[in-house]
């Protein structure tokens, strides 16, 4: 119950490892992809929020949500899902604030994920 305290939920990450066939190198590669891609997505979201481009904002939030889910960044995923839902409803005046929170979460998640040693992840 409730939102996990840790930025990264390890079971989710394990599940991902399992799904892709248990190859840790593959997982490392994916994690690197996420680490390099996520800040870019956040930047896109900031720009879209500033330009009041709801659709672009929604799409970026969706993508980040999807990726965050994969890597167990549940809180980040939840924030992104909320923003995506809000954008679906129409123009979202609180977008800038949401993006700021998301940026914060993203950084936390990225740090946690970066610090994680994939090799040590229990199968």
């Amino acid at each position, binding site marked *: 119950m409730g939102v996990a305290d840790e930025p990264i939920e390890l079971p989710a990450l394990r599940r991902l490892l399992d799904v892709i066939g248990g190859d840790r190198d593959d997982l490392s590669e994916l994690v690197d*992809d996420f680490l390099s891609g996520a800040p870019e997505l956040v930047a896109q979201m900031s720009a879209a929020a500033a330009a009041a481009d709801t659709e672009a904002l929604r799409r970026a939030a969706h993508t980040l949500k999807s990726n965050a889910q994969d890597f167990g960044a549940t809180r980040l995923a939840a924030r992104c899902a909320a923003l995506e839902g809000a954008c679906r409803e129409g123009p979202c005046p609180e977008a800038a604030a949401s993006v700021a929170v998301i940026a914060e979460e993203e950084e936390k998640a990225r740090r946690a994920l970066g610090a994680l040693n994939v090799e040590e992840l229990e199968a």
Partner: protein
Amino acid sequence: MSTSGKDGSGGTPASGTGEAAVSRGGARSLIPGTIRGKLFLVFAIVFLSAAASAIIAQRANVLVQQQLSSITEDNLPSLVFAHEVSAVMTNIRGVAAALATAETGPALSSRRGQLKRHIDNAKAVINGLDATGVDRQTEARLNRFVADVEELATELASTVEMRLQLDEQLSEKIQGLAGEYTKFNASIAPLVSQQLQFLGTESERVTANTEKTVSRLNDISFKGLIPLLSINAQLATMKEALRVAFEADAETRLDDAWSDFVASSSVITRNLRELRGNAAVSDAVDVETLEDGFGDILAVGIGDDSIFERKRQQLAQEGAIQVDAAQETSQLEASLADLERQLKLAITLIRGQTVNVGIGLNRQVSDSLDAINQASVDGYGALLKLEALGNRAVGLLSVAPFVQEVADLEPLRTELEASEAEVASILDRLGTGAEVSATADLARRLMEFGRGETGVFELRANELQALEQVADLLFRTNALTQQMSVSAAEIVANAREMTDAAATTALGSLDSSRLTLSLVIGVSLLTMLGAIVYVNRSLGSRLSAFSNATLALAEGDLSVKLPEATGRDEVARLMRALSVFRDTAAEMQRSNLREIAEARQQLVDAIESISEGFAIFDRDDRLLIANTRYREIMLGDRNAPLQPGASFADIVRRAAASGRFPDAEPDPDTWVERQISRHHRLDEPSIQVLAGDRWQRISNRRTEEGGIVAIHSDITELKRVSDELLRAKEAADAANEAKTAFLAAMSHEIRTPLNGIVGMSRLLGETKLDAEQRDFTATIIQAADTLLAIINDILDFSKVEAGAMEIEQAPMDLHATVEVALELVAAKAAEKKLELACQIEPNVPAWIIGDSVRVKQILLNLLNNAVKFTQAGEIVLAVSVLKADSERPERLGLSVRDTGIGIPKDRMDRLFRSFSQVDASTSRRFGGTGLGLAIAKRLVELMGGAIEVESEEGVGTMFSFSIPLQAASPSEDERRDAWLTGLQGRRALVVDDNRTNRRILERQLGAWGLDVSQTGSPREALDWIAGGAEFDVCVIDYLMPKMDGLELAQRIRQEKGQAAPPIILCSASTPSGSEFRQKVAGMAFSAVLTKPAKSRHLLKALHDAVRPDADESTPAKTEKPKATEAACRPDGAPLTMLVVDDNRINQKVASKILARLGYAPDIVSSGEEAVRACMAGRYDVVLMDIEMPEMDGIAATALIRQKLPNPEQPYVVALTANAMAQERERYLRSGLDDYLSKPLDVGALNASLRTAAGFLSTRGQGAWTLEVEDGRG
């Protein structure tokens, strides 16, 4: 003049009583006092003058009439007589002229009769003259004229008669002439043609003679003369040749001469032969003599001792024989001369003969021409002449009847006589041959028509004379009648003179009458004029003064000055009456004004007494009246000036400026506009906030005149109360939400440790315990279970309350659901010795669309309640189909009836509320949260149904609910279970020579509950069957040594006949080819499987074989292989795949998962690329991300569906992170085949891919092919 006209017309109806007025007024004064009297006086004058004019006109008229009638009586008879005489004379002239020109006897006699009648008529007219007063002398003259006319008429008639007779004779003559003429023409025609024939014959004869003579001439001159001349020429050559021969001193010259001689001699010989053949020549010439002479010459030149031979010898033997040249020459010369002479003679003869023949010819032709000439002139010519003369005579005679003058007849007669003489001479010339005499006779008779007394000419002469006489007579008759007309005209002239005199007298008297009449009329007019002037002065001016005053009063001016009422007539009386009326009206006006003021004051008082603001506006939105409250509300001051007539817009503007309306502050203009538009909205009252947080309601009503009544009510208090209520409700809702959330959270948090308690208690219960401990443990378990049930209820209820309960719509096995629910309460019911029954109507479908868990939950709740509240008796669960009615479609009805304690009527309404039981004691007695029914009710409602209860205390209770009914087909897994059930205990025979295969089959079938007998030998299998072994199904291999599957199947069928079990054929490799297929098809196997057979296939085949009639709706071809390895295409290769995702990480994850599962997917990053890739290469499956920029997955799928042909369509699986049930439906509707949520679950992905493989294998292929190809996978 207009005034007088009006007076005149008004006077007419008054005339009836006029006399009385005159008699009354006349006694006092000459001029009457009243208007009526005055008008009567004027009328009397007019009447008198009109009467005088009429009398005078009447007298003049009578006088003229008398004079006119005297004219008529005196002169009319003589005029009539003159007219009659003139008419009769005109008639006589006309008829006489007609009579003179009559052309036939009947016409003549009729006209003669007419003429006689007219003459008699004339006589009668003249005899009637006595009466007219015409003098005797005239009468006698007229009588004489008539007698003369009669005489002339008689003569005219007889002359005309004579003329007609002559005319008739002449006609007859001409007719006779025509007859003779025809005969003449007829007789002369054959003579002429005979003569023509003769001429023809003659000329033919001349021609023939001439031709013969010309041919003879030709024979003589050309055929005779030319050979002779030729002979003459050749003779000269021969003579020269001989001469040369004589003189020749060399042989060569001699030879030349000889050959010349021979050539000429042959020409001469030929010519002589020709001459002899020509008869005409030989007649004239002695050819023999010529031949003799020529023979002599030949003898000199030809032969052994001819001159040439001798000369040759001489030349050869040099002087042996000397030719005597001189002698020889003279002799030869003599012969030649003789021949030449003969020749010349012959030529001369021929020429003479030619001339003779020519002369003869000339004579002959001349003779013939003479004969022709003779024939033509004397015969043919005479006849033609005679015919012409005949024609001419007839022409002359025919013209004669039309000659108009006697003198013109004479030349015709002379000409005819000349013709006659000529005819006579021609007839003499023609002689008296029998063939001519008839014609001659006719010619003479033609001529005779002109001769003598009865000749045509004489007759015409007489006729002309008669015509002349007629004209003369006619002229005389006309003259006489003319004279009579003149006499009549004289009579008329006399009469006219008399008439003129009488008319002059009449005109004189008419003139004098007219003068008198004019005088009378003039006097009348003057009198009338005087009367009019008087009336106008005494009435017109006063009446106009009266009417002006009346009009002024009518317009309401009661202060107008009224004219003086002078005199004693009607006008004076009117004036006095008007002044009385004026005074009365002034008094009434004063009293009305007083009353209106009072009424208005009452209205104002009433309006002022209303507590609401009240105002009335007219149709132009101008204020009529407003009370003080209205001013207070609108303008903020009860004494603010507000005049009637102020426009609503002005008032609102002032209101906006007053500061009483907070809404008006930011934008007064807009506010004012809104108020004005609201002002006209009559249907609903508007609410307005006032300064000081006061509220008013404005309602407007339309008045009958189209104005508006505005009522402003102060609703501040009302508003305050309603706001408080609203706040209270919001607070309550919030509290309820909080409660639900709390309950959910709490229940969840409690459930986890509770599960632990239950689990541990059970574990504890299984350890070694003493009786007491066991009892405690059981109590703990029971308590924990109860607690868990309560918490589950609370959780469910809070979910329902929060709207978080989702009802699934999936196929469910209704029977199973009902049975499970019953099973769960069966133990408790048995404990209480209650009868538990289930009653499902046969028409209830086994499978429906619905949420089996929730249906089961509802049933369990109801059943549990029933068990709980029933001490003895039964509990019946019934399921039925409720027929559709006008309000609802067909529904499923479920009910639970018990024989329990029942529910009091007054508690029934609380039954379905949360946390409520029938009463508190019940709760203590039976336990439970009291949430069960509330949850059941919500669930039923969520399913779109309704729940209700019937109960009687002490008798029992029945809960029943209905949900929408939608039948469904069972899901695959459910079917599988059903099939397995059907196979339990069935006997199967497995025949396969491969031991491994056999054992696999044995184990598989055994696992499914079949009773398996297996053998590797078909023979043994047959023995078993022959020995009486019974099997429900046989599974046999195709390729076996000694006896293959087909043969074995045949033998089994032979053995068992109709009772043969169904047979499934398995084949390791399918011998392709139509022969095998035909054989197999002919064998009617219940299934043909490819080894190794997929268990799913085998199960289906067994099921179909054992129960061939069951489950018809799902034929074998819809079956799908169930693989644990990578799903494959029908050809055995792994499915080709395209992953579409714009998210790089997702792409990687998907490709890694798929690679692990044995696929090699292509990857693209956008919808557009996906469409292109699908069109370029064929993919079996597309994993399509939904969320993509530009073209999303749904649009891309739609394009792929649209662009690709059906057989190439991929199986498209949606991938999305948005996991909502309603989304899923939307995807499937958009053409996507399946749906997977992200993060991807390997199991779900595998299942979807297997479905895809099944889909691909069934697509557009027959059942047979499918079976075979499926097996290879």
